[in-house]
């Protein structure tokens, strides 16, 4: 498809439904993956993405930074994801426990597990732990930023991350011992 981003953006600024559709479908594949990490199902992911796109269409008139559309949209989508989770998880408890233990997962495990299976495992994490894990690992937030967004301390964020890794490690290693994956290079 012939895609000219500036034209689509201008069309969206004029509330042109076709340009809005183009922008929506252009970013859907990449962003729905982000939303799916925070929602339990496809409907939840769709709701987050639609809320984010509504925000985007409302504020696209303010969009000025040429060439940074992707980052701008992703930022809004991630914030919508966090808002969505905040609504579901009423509060994220502060934990005083010190995190000293580092968790490592054998790299071989990653050869026998697919992204979909990992997402399933992440979906089984306690809600607040899952949010912190996603924000840190996939969105690149620092513990300080996570703390500010979720209203928890840096230490609590670190604890959740460590807890998530521990659970992931046990589930992934458990998974890898019961199956062998062939679809891998080498």
């Amino acid at each position, binding site marked *: 498809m012939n895609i000219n981003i500036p034209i689509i953006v201008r069309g969206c600024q004029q509330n042109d439904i076709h340009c809005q559709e183009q922008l929506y479908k252009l970013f*859907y594949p990449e962003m*729905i993956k982000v939303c799916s990490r925070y929602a339990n199902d496809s409907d939840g992911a769709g709701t987050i993405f639609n809320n984010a796109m509504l925000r985007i*269409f409302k504020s696209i008139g303010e969009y000025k930074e040429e060439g940074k559309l992707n980052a701008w949209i992703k930022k809004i989508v991630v914030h919508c994801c966090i808002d969505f989770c905040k609504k579901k998880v009423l509060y994220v408890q502060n934990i005083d426990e010190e995190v000293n233990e580092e968790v490592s997962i054998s790299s071989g495990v990653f050869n026998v597990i697919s992204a979909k299976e990992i997402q399933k495992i992440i979906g089984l994490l306690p809600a607040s732990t899952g949010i912190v894990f996603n924000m840190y690992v996939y969105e690149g937030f620092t513990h300080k930023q996570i703390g500010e967004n979720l209203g928890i301390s840096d230490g609590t964020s670190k604890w959740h991350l460590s807890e998530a890794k521990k659970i992931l490690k046990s589930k992934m290693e458990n998974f890898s011992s019961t199956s062998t994956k062939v679809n891998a290079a080498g």
Partner: protein
Amino acid sequence: MQQDNNDIENNLRQLENQQLPDLSNMDKHWQQMQQMLSADIKPKAARKLSFLSFYGRRLFLAAAIITVVFAALVYRYAQTNTTKNSTNLIAKKSIDKKENPSIQNNLQNTAILNPKEENQLLIQHSNNNTVLVVTADSDLQSPPATEVAMTEAEKDEAAKKMIATFYNNIQKPIQEFTINADKGGSIIANEGTVFTIPASAFTDQDGKIISGDVEVMVEEFYKYADMVAANLTTVSDNKQLLTGGMIRLTAKVDGKNLNLRSSKDIKLAMPTTTYDPEMRLFTSESEPANAGMASYASYAVQNRNIDWDLAGQQDVFPIYDGKTNFPDDLDQPYVVIKTIRKRIAKFALSDKSSLTTDQMEKILKEKFGDYYDEIKVKRQIDPGRSSGSIIYRGTIEKENVIGDSSRMTLEQAIRTRVIDKKETALYMERIKADSILYLKRVIAYRFLNALQIEQKTAPKENFQAVYNYTKSISPDSLERIYNDYVRKQKAYSFTIKKMGWINCDKYSNCSNKTNFVINLPVDVKADKFVSQVVFISTHSVMPGRTLNNQIGFQHIPLDAGVYVVGLGERNGKVVSFMQKLRVGRSEVNINDLQETTPEAFRKKIAELDIN
């Protein structure tokens, strides 16, 4: 440890990047979005109002209304006094001055990019008579666009663009895999196609061998719905082909497409539930894999017209070549290491030997002590592997094999005096045993491959099943097993020499063929339609060609049960038809053209796979 943590996160991110998005609900979500948009749009200033009190909002609304009325009056005044303004928004007026719909209200219009001017957006009205042309550098504060009539050429161009967009919206997502080019690897695609890519298989356009990560893209077309959506047909030089599936394989690095090295080939297994030994490999140069990106950008789907070329046979069941390994150089070491001070000879001792390595070393020292300073003997399951060849030892169980072997036929062995004539019977027995063992191994390999295709993974149980299966094979039942295996074959195996389009087909042997045309309603143009004839009882799709204002189908088997499927443009809308018929009449009238959407059309053509 910090490194470990980074690795975990990198591994997780890499896996995430490899995951394909689920686009199955995109249209449903977009419909929900449209509802949200129609209920809540353009409140740019609304957020700033949030801090205002209830009364403050009312006051603000009143002020806003006054401002709008005032602005409208000023605007009207300006319009009456100014015939031309300096706007960049190119605005042309419609022939029909009675209608003057605003952009916002025209949700049924079609917006497309002008094919001639990339920076223009055409907004075509539903009545197909008017068009708004908006330039990219238009001043957004300028007065609204007006309308002009489209010329016939512009209408044709717009229709083509609309159909192209429609086709793009019904394509399956391309599957992407990442492999290390230095190591090669296996890929199992979503519908069971298996690719085995050797190490260092790719070169760039300059012939330079690629190393590091390579993105491999796979598109699979086994179902009618996918073939029709991709406008793929099964014709070779106007001859009908019956297909076992079509594949498109491309690889790229840094966005640039790669070629397969001439010395390398990719093993391909295409799954089937109805194995046909007559299937052959067909490829096409119509859309070379190295032409641009692996997208439809350069080859619009509706213009696709692939003429398949016969490119090879199936990788048939390997036939044993009648050769075996003769220990001709029975006493030769498999490697001799020469240093400044000494020569070290290394011998391999078969695990079937009753001698210990020390005993053999003693024998060899007596024999070769003058030649080598040091002699080492290593017990190996398969001595031949030391030199890279594979030895199938067959039934010869107790033999003191040392060193390397040569693979040759019995006749060659006798002629070169590797063995004595009186040993012929012994080696004939070995060749027979080797051939059985070889066949067993091949069966085991194919059996394992079939299990993997079915389950997409190779759990330990598969290997156990293969072991049990091969254990049960006796020499006298080998032929029966072979025939049975072929009958149950689960995949077509091919060796492919280049990237791009691959089709598994055979020629149709039907001799009684005919031609027919379909007549479309008079208000549409046949050249704005893409159509195919889809066969019900055989797996084949043939293209329709525009003849005057009809669509013609040539060389179609008489009496075949088929569907004629078409997609085209009528009054600025995408319409489609799908009609079941038995080939016999020379003309078929299509009266029922239905306006369609990508979702509706996909749903409709999905029925082709049910019948």
